[in-house]
């Protein structure tokens, strides 16, 4: 029996969870001696105040769409991929190698070549944990965390040695001019909308939106997606229906790693136009919060990613104006994960009871 209507499940519960997360965040801001209403005002203005700020917000949102989708695809196969961070680092390496060593004549070709390289590298970084989970039963959560910790020293080594540009900074040389992706201002300008060109949002946003459509079609419109969801619901039932666990785990994790890696289209190819050491900036982890908040559905993930983009860009303004460290965003992110993920039943159960109670009254 369905205890409450669909809209309550899809909208009411997540919104209430968010309100709880917001209240606790406000208490934290109050406790460190600032006014939460002022802080909110600064964040919203900093994230949406003018089109340059909006560009930053959309740039961050693009990162989070990729990493959120990555977590969601794995989650449908009941794999908890915490390795998005490392996969995005290695995806960045793939994109950088493709752009540095292959002289793409035009940005469209660079986009395809670099994007594929990013996806392949990200997927490869997810492949070993996936294989170990499927074949040896090593817990995917632990192994993907270990791979996160391995990605950083690897890049640290490469960016300080083999692929380092001249100068002090651990970074690669800049990619050739012809490979630079058009920014949002150029894209919107082509259809007659004026938009600031001082922000980092770029063509990757469109790829991210296409990725949303791809994941939706994959999970809900293909046989593979059906098998993945069946496996995620019940491994024994799926096995009985002839679905091979190894195949599902491997494919889901490879797609997941590939999506996380493709974040490099945005941050490496679109924004920095070279590979720097801390290119990912925690976006892989924010993907977990985004996927949970978006209920692992591309539409939800899109909305959640924009919300976190606002939070992230607003958080930067917050640290500039009130000297609240950027880690405040990590706190909010943790609270969102806690309330929409782990404490879901705390919010859900009372609402279910309410609906059951009112439902009975209506029937009488």
């Amino acid at each position: 029996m369905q205890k409450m209507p669909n809209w309550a499940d899809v909208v009411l519960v997540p919104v209430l969870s968010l309100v709880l997360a917001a209240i606790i965040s406000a208490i934290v801001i109050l406790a460190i001696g600032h006014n939460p209403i002022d802080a909110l005002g600064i964040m919203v203005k900093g994230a949406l105040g003018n089109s340059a700020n909006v560009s930053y917000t959309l740039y961050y949102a693009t990162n989070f769409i990729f990493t959120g989708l990555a977590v969601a695809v794995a989650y449908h196969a009941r794999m908890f991929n915490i390795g998005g961070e490392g996969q995005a680092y290695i995806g960045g390496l793939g994109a950088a190698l493709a752009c540095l060593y292959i002289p793409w004549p035009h940005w469209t070709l660079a986009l395809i070549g670099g994007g594929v390289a990013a996806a392949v590298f990200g997927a490869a970084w997810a492949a070993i944990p996936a294989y170990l989970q499927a074949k040896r039963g090593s817990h995917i959560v632990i192994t993907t965390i270990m791979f996160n910790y391995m990605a950083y020293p690897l890049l640290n080594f490469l960016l300080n040695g083999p692929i380092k540009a001249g100068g002090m900074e651990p970074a690669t040389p800049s990619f050739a001019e012809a490979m630079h992706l058009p920014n949002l201002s150029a894209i919107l300008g082509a259809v007659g909308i004026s938009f600031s060109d001082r922000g980092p949002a770029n063509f990757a946003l469109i790829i991210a939106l296409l990725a949303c459509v791809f994941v939706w079609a994959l999970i809900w419109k293909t046989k593979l997606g059906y098998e993945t969801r069946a496996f995620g619901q019940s491994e024994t039932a799926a096995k009985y229906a002839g679905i091979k666990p190894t195949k599902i785990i491997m494919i889901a994790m490879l797609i997941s790693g590939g999506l996380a890696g493709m974040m490099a289209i945005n941050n490496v190819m679109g924004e920095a136009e070279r590979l720097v050491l801390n290119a990912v900036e925690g976006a892989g982890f924010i993907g977990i919060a985004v996927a949970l908040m978006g209920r692992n559905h591309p539409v939800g993930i899109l909305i959640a990613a924009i919300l976190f983009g606002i939070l992230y860009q607003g958080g930067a303004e917050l640290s500039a104006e009130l000297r609240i460290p950027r880690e405040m965003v990590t706190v909010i992110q943790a609270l969102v994960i806690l309330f929409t993920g782990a404490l879901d039943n705390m919010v859900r159960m009372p609402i279910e009871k309410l609906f059951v109670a009112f439902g009975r009254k209506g029937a009488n």
Partner: protein
Amino acid sequence: MDLLAFFDIAVLDGTVRLGVPLLLACLAGLYSERAGIFDIGLEGKMLIAAFLAAGVSFTTGSVWLGLIAGVLASVILSLLHGLASITFRGNQLISGVAINFFASGITVVAAQAWFGEGGRTPSLSGAARFESIQFPGALTRIRDIAKADLPMKVYSELLSGHTIIVYLCILIVPFVWWTLYRTRFGLRLRAVGENPGAVDTAGISVYRMRYSAVIICGVLCGLAGAYLSTGLQAGFVREMTAGRGYIALAALIFAKWRPWQALGATMLFGYLQALAIRPDILERAIGIRVQTQVLDALPYVLTVIVLAGFVGKAIPPRAGGEAYVKER
């Protein structure tokens, strides 16, 4: 090549120092997971304990008050984990992830608001920190130790000169073994992780058993974190746990959820960490210079190799990760 260099006394001494927080966190996870509650939030609990222990120690000048504050903070996060995973039957992995991020963020935000030093506490000294205990007759100066013969080196560097928490740790493994295998509490704890339904049928509260396990886990994580910031180092810096909570989890799997094996596993990982900060000794032992980044990655690489099955199949407690729903 000088394979004896692998047994360098300084590295073994570092093994003990670095192995102790891993051991405490590993045993914390052991209690929790043996009771059927997966806990990937060890990292976050250690981190918040490290921060509060250092902050309170600095403010009050007493390391013991700091220790208490650190343990309390860790237990509060444990109870949150219990609330999510026992009472509200939420996903235990997600709850652990939330706790880790919360600790990672709040420690920096609070440290900045409290001390204004960019997310760290001021350095601790004197009574605000666990001093090393020197055994009678032990040499303390590095130059003297270098000249001494082997038994004196072992006595002065490896055995003497640790903090009280390290010495207490000698007792903890037999104690955990005893509670787990020789007491009624331990029997029930293990049963609740394997077959909570049977425990419930026997008239014992599954919830109470699991909450006790989670609280013990919080206390041990708190000790581990407090040791990091007030014993091993003199003060808190951001992300100072540096993945130790996850390495402890890996050690727990390596040890197949058993206390003596946990000691072995954590000391092995502690040894790797100790070796990673002494590249000169590794170079002497194998005769090639190794990039520091390789050493940074080494504990994690070895963890994966270990998890990949060189330990035989590790079977977790059967009811691990699943919430218990009491029948009505």
